[in-house]
């Protein structure tokens, strides 16, 4: 059953409530119109009868009789009645059968019931004015107020003609809106059910209109997009972990197995065990690096940010890596063209720059250069680490910041391929940017927009 469900919906109830309020409003409006019209007509009738009574009272006796006889015939709608009565109440002229009981003879208009009519007298409600003439006769002028009753009937008819369709319309619109809303909810529900069932590519339906439902759908879809990306990333990471851990684990297993079968002395056994331990260390290093990235990504410790002099960090990294570069025959130089101070976490920024330097030195062949630079560009502070190594192809640049991705060049080198993802996590946490471009080799830049850290800090 569709209908009862519709009538239970909030939209429909709201529709009904609005319709009810509308009806009350229209009723009040029509009542006001009726009351105003009634008052206006009464006042006008009163004016007319009073005036006529006054004018006639001043006329001659025989002229008066003629006028009183004439008056009911003169007005085409037969709404005016007149009567002239002798002092004893006998009718002398006019169409009013008798002096209405209770009529004050002071010339002021008031409501009265009279029996009047040219052919057959009928009882009717009038506004009447009565006057006693100097000769003792009584003059009564009456004006029918059936008009007012007619008008109220017209008003009532109009009311019915206007109100009923309006009421019907409100209920219909209420039901329609409610049905529409229910249909949208049902659509959304179907989409959500599919998402829950595992189809993460599913999105909430949008109709391209700008209604609240569409805007809500757009917001939720944005969220779904992000969730999908995250879940895919996690799935990808899971695969990567499995792959990267399987390699050393398999190697260890083979080594241990062969060692167990072939080792003839304790020393030989030790050699095998040492290799196994080295493999385990590598596996643990992967796990540690992953945990570290997860930790940074989940850090919301922005309140702990403080002023960090980037120059100090660059100098410290240089100090730390100089011997390593020298050992490898790589020239490490520092160029501090600016000395910016940013809002951030010193330890994390040091870790990021150290990772970039580590990577640069690792991939630069002997005789090459690695330059650590600090510069200011378009109001932004830039930490630049450039090398003369093989660089990264454009196609790979997005991939290298993903967890575990190692370009072919790094497959031949040691390390667990998490360095750049780690830098990316730190840079994101600070609201900075990381760009990779081609110089002679690879140029990695951490771009710090002015006061990016500070804004982030205010948010927390």
């Amino acid at each position: 059953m569709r209908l009862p469900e519709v009538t239970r919906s909030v939209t429909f109830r709201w529709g009904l409530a609005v319709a009810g309020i509308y009806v009350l409003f229209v009723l009040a409006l029509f009542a006001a119109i009726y009351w105003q019209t009634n008052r206006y007509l009464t006042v006008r009738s009163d004016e007319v009868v009073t005036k006529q009574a006054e004018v006639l009272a001043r006329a001659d006796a025989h002229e008066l009789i003629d006028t009183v006889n004439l008056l009911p015939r003169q007005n085409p709608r037969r709404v005016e009645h007149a009567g002239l009565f002798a002092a004893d109440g006998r009718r002398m002229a006019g169409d009013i059968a008798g002096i209405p009981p209770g009529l004050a003879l002071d010339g002021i208009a008031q409501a009265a019931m009279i029996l009047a009519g040219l052919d057959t007298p009928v009882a009717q409600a009038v506004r009447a004015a009565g006057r006693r003439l100097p000769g003792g006769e009584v003059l009564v002028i009456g004006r029918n107020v059936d008009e007012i009753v007619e008008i109220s009937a017209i008003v009532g008819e109009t009311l019915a003609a206007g109100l009923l369709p309006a009421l019907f319309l409100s209920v219909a619109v209420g039901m329609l809106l409610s049905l529409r809303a229910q249909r949208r909810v049902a659509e959304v529900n179907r989409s959500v059910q599919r998402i829950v069932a595992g189809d993460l590519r599913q999105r909430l339906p949008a109709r391209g209109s700008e209604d609240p439902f569409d805007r809500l759908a757009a917001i939720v879809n944005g969220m779904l997009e992000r969730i999908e990306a995250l879940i895919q990333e996690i799935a990808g990471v899971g695969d990567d972990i499995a792959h990267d851990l399987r390699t050393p684990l398999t190697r260890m297993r083979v080594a241990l197995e062969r060692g167990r079968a072939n080792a003839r002395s304790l020393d030989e056994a030790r050699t095998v065990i040492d290799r196994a331990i080295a493999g385990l260390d590598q596996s643990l290093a992967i796990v540690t690096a992953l945990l570290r990235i997860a930790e940074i990504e989940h850090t919301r410790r922005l309140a702990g940010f403080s002023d960090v002099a980037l120059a100090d960090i660059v100098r410290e990294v240089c100090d730390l890596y100089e011997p390593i570069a020298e050992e490898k025959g790589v020239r490490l130089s520092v160029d501090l063209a600016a000395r910016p101070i940013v809002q951030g976490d010193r330890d994390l920024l040091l870790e990021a720059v150290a990772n970039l330097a580590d990577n640069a030195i690792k991939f630069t062949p002997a005789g090459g250069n690695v330059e650590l630079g600090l510069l200011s560009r378009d109001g932004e502070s830039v930490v630049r680490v450039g090398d003369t190594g093989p660089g990264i192809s454009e196609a790979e640049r997005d991939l290298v910041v993903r967890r575990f991705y190692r370009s072919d060049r790094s497959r031949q080198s040691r390390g667990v391929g998490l360095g750049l993802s780690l830098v990316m996590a730190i840079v994101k946490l600070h609201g900075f940017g990381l760009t990779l471009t081609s110089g002679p080799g690879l140029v990695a830049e951490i771009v710090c927009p002015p006061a990016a850290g500070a804004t982030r800090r205010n948010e927390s």
Partner: protein
Amino acid sequence: MPKLLLIEDDRETADEIVAEFTDLGFDVTWAATGIEGLDQARAGKPDAMIVDRLLPGMDGLTIVEALRKEQMRTPVLVLSALGAVDDRVRGLRAGGDDYLTKPFELVELIARVDALLRRPVDNRDTKLRVGPLELDLIERTAKRGDRSVELLPREFRLLEYMMQRKDQVLTRAMLLEEVWKYKFVPQTNLVDVHMGRLRRKIDEPNEPPMIHNVRGVGFVLRAPA
């Protein structure tokens, strides 16, 4: 025989640690719950404690805080699977003396417990001496015997730290944390390279070596026999 109290709920981990330290000549007591651990700490007066943070129904830090309130100064190493910098800071602030994140290597744990048991004496002397090696903390100069050794500031820092902890095995992570204030382990063998340079300056080919590599663990500075 130093007395060591281990508060750790995971039986396998605990067995490994107990076995290793017993082999090294420690008198190890194991407590599997926080309550038991607290009782043992009060009654047994251990020389050092290893406290796991994630105990059933209790944060290991609560134990450390309780003991510190009772004016118990026993050095404590906090073990945790929680690696966040925040957790580390909280661990040290609660009264822990060192913090080690799981998974860890046993040698790392041993070196750190060893370091806790021999905290460097607060030496007011402005000169450090180990065998023929002499370090002048005011003049910032180093000598081995009569030979003066030219050191870069970073090498001086490293040597100073090692001389304050002579005969003690120092792991790479410990050196990075203490000498370079690095809270992470870089991929390259940074410490080895720095140590290699320092060693070339301290131990010349004709001299008996003082800086020794402890395989799979780290380094140690010893006076020549």
